């Protein structure tokens, strides 16, 4: 496969290949997807590391993400500034972790961060309530939401501090039979 592309240097492509789960072809394809979101902002030449950030609105309108109730959290978790505005690095990182080849532990780590709405490294009851409301589009009553959150904390909280730490979450999710198949985005 010849190096006919002029977007990245060979070292850059190598570095991306090492840091993500994508092959060279896929990285280039993802770059074109990134560029298609805003062709006027994204240059065709990344060899001099331009500092380009796409705003969250463009990312959130991608067909792979627009129906996902957690798209804002996903963008926030993977973006450098925590606001959802993503550079190409963040973009590649996001789809790499969400691809089929990422291992379970890595996905569990990022899933934890996605569900941790207030970014305090713990999934507390309010995080759970927000997750539940996003999942059911606010169609459950408050009582029902409360009961479900209690049950979750009861099931998964191992060290009994009333919230889920990363270890609790990983311990629980590692045995979930369909976590790998649901927590993945095809692009």
């Amino acid at each position: 496969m010849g190096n006919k592309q002029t977007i990245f240097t060979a070292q850059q492509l190598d570095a991306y290949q090492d840091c993500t789960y994508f092959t060279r072809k896929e990285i280039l394809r993802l770059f074109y997807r990134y560029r298609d979101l805003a062709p006027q902002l994204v240059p065709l030449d990344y060899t001099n590391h331009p500092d380009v950030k796409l705003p969250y609105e463009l990312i959130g309108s991608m067909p792979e993400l627009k129906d996902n109730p957690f798209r804002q959290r996903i963008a926030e978790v993977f973006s450098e500034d925590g606001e959802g505005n993503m550079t190409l690095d963040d973009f590649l990182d996001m789809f790499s972790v969400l691809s089929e080849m990422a291992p379970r532990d890595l996905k569990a780590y990022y899933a934890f961060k996605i569900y941790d709405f207030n970014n305090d490294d713990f999934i507390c009851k309010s995080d759970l309530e927000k997750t539940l409301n996003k999942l059911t589009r606010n169609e459950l009553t408050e009582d029902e939401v409360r009961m479900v959150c209690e049950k979750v904390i009861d099931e998964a909280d191992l060290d009994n501090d009333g919230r889920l730490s990363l270890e609790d979450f990983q311990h629980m999710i590692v045995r979930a039979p369909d976590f790998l198949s649901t927590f993945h985005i095809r692009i």
Partner: protein
Amino acid sequence: MEAHESVDFKRLMSEESTVSTLSSDSCEYYQTEIFDLLPSIQASRPEQNRHDFSEETNQGGREAREKSGQLSRGPRDKTSMQPLRNLPMCIQGKKGAKERRKLEINDINFWESWRKTQSTNRKRVREQIKEALSGLVPWRQTLRTIEGKFGVGVKSYFVFLRYLIYLNLLHCVLIGGFIVGPSIFYRTDEYEPLMFKDSDSALDFFLGTGYVNRSLVFYGFYTQGSLDLKCLNIPLLYLAGIFSIIFLSLILVVRRTTVGYKHTWMLGKRYSMNVSYKIFCGWDFTIQDPTAAALKHGFIRNDLKLFLEEQSFSLRAAQRTLGEKVRLYLLRIVLNLITLSLLGGAFYLIYFATQTSLKKENSGHHWLVSLLLQYFPPITITFVNLVLPHIFRKISSFEDYSFTMQVNATLLRSIFLKLASLGIYLFFVFTTTEQDAKCKENQFGREMYKLSIFNFLATFFSVFFFNYPRKLVQETYPRSSLARISGKQRFLIPFNVLDLVYSQTVSWVGVYYCPLLPVIGIVSLVVTFYVKKFNVMRCCVPEQRMFRGSSSSVLFHFMLLLGLFMCAATLGFNHYPLQSTEGRNASSCGPFRNEQTMFTVTGGCVKSLPSPAQTTIRYLTSEAFALPLILAEIILLTSYVSRRRANQRAIERLKDMLVMSSSDKRFLVKQHATMLRQRNKHH
């Protein structure tokens, strides 16, 4: 020491853990300096290491590592071993880590680096091969669409169907290799049976007589042939083929059964994580369609509502008064008696049908009547199997069980119905075949063949002549009384899976007498896939109550295993010389003609082996070996059971320890904060 309210290490109740903001007490806990320095908190923040890494690339590896080494030794050791992409940090961090590793390994020789690149290339090639192979798996796109529109339960039905197709393909390969191949190759009286005779007709395909009777579909076709070595002859190969099919099916089914259940069995109900899985793994991130997303939201909501309903149901059940309980149990006993009588009636019907069909006077009728008479038992069995499960479903709705219990109770009764009807049918066929029939095995194979074909036809026609018209009626006359009575059609997963399992059981039971039954199985399964897909996509609406698959899967796999057992029992029953059938042991057709039985053939092979092997085999099959074997198995099982119990106790102790150390930590942090505050106050 300051007076503290005693730390309560019972699980927090809902009143204590209020809405989003944490209580002031806890806020103080999380904002203390020492909290940030705790090793467990440091370990869960690897992106702090990112900054350390990018600094190190400027400074060089060693000193920075030592600086932060004390506090975060744990994750650092882990991160230095793993491949870069598995590190939970952003790309900048990974690039920094890569630079750091490069500095570490710049004195690795050429050989090592070449080997590393080779192994990464091999990993990439393997991934690509896996990707290509998974692209070859049939119907992936269809299954994805079905899952998007109807949920995971319906998709699992189709996945199970595909699995059965693979199983039948394996059977076909084995039969081709062991039975059909050598038989055709070493045949002495070449193609004489396969010529069309005058008495053949198109009906033979449905009845299994005439041309089909003589062809390789049935047992009678296979002869001794010219392959006549002591340990490699057609009868032995035939036996080997059938036994390998049964054995492999057993292994595959057991493996499939245990794959998902290890954890549930090991940990028991207390640690089931159902609701957590529903919330954290509930949303399918691959959904890209707004209607599919809306459906998924609906599914999740209904699933959670079902869970809450079950909670309230168990609460209600626990609060039943004695009078209510007595009345409920009486009702259940009455309903079970009704079920038993229905089952008895069904069995009598089958007996009647078998007797009618096997009577000798059937030959003088018009061809349609004789066709119907021949198919009378399969028709009855299929009719009974279609109607009674729905009646059972209605009955179980009166018994005041929770929803999953209802489904399982219906399933248990239906499984019993299907297996028992099949068993009774087999029994009657065995005992009422005439004494002087030319080839009993062919007759038996014929019955299984008819059963298979009729099952397939019933599925096919029921969709096109019942489900589809019903849907048309619903659409064109939605207010008519007919449409209102029948209601919207739903794809009932348990009954459909049960049908699949039943047809697979028939295939297993009949494979000895009709070796091409797996081929028929594959064809019918493939057509069933498309027919059911049509049924689901065009005629059904998504089921509102989610089918909780896990507990019912146990029942389905149990039925598969029972089917295998029934197959083995049929073979044993047929081959073991019974007192009453002493005279008719010699069969006049098939590979075991000429006074041979299974035992003589295997005996002949064993005798031809060298003498040490003979003595070993004789020892292995004697009773003197069976008894120590059973004892050893019992001892092994007991050790496993006690190990499991010890593991469970260890898990309980560890969980308690975890709770205790967590409360210790909280207590100590609070103490430390209080003491700091006091010290600052004094200064």
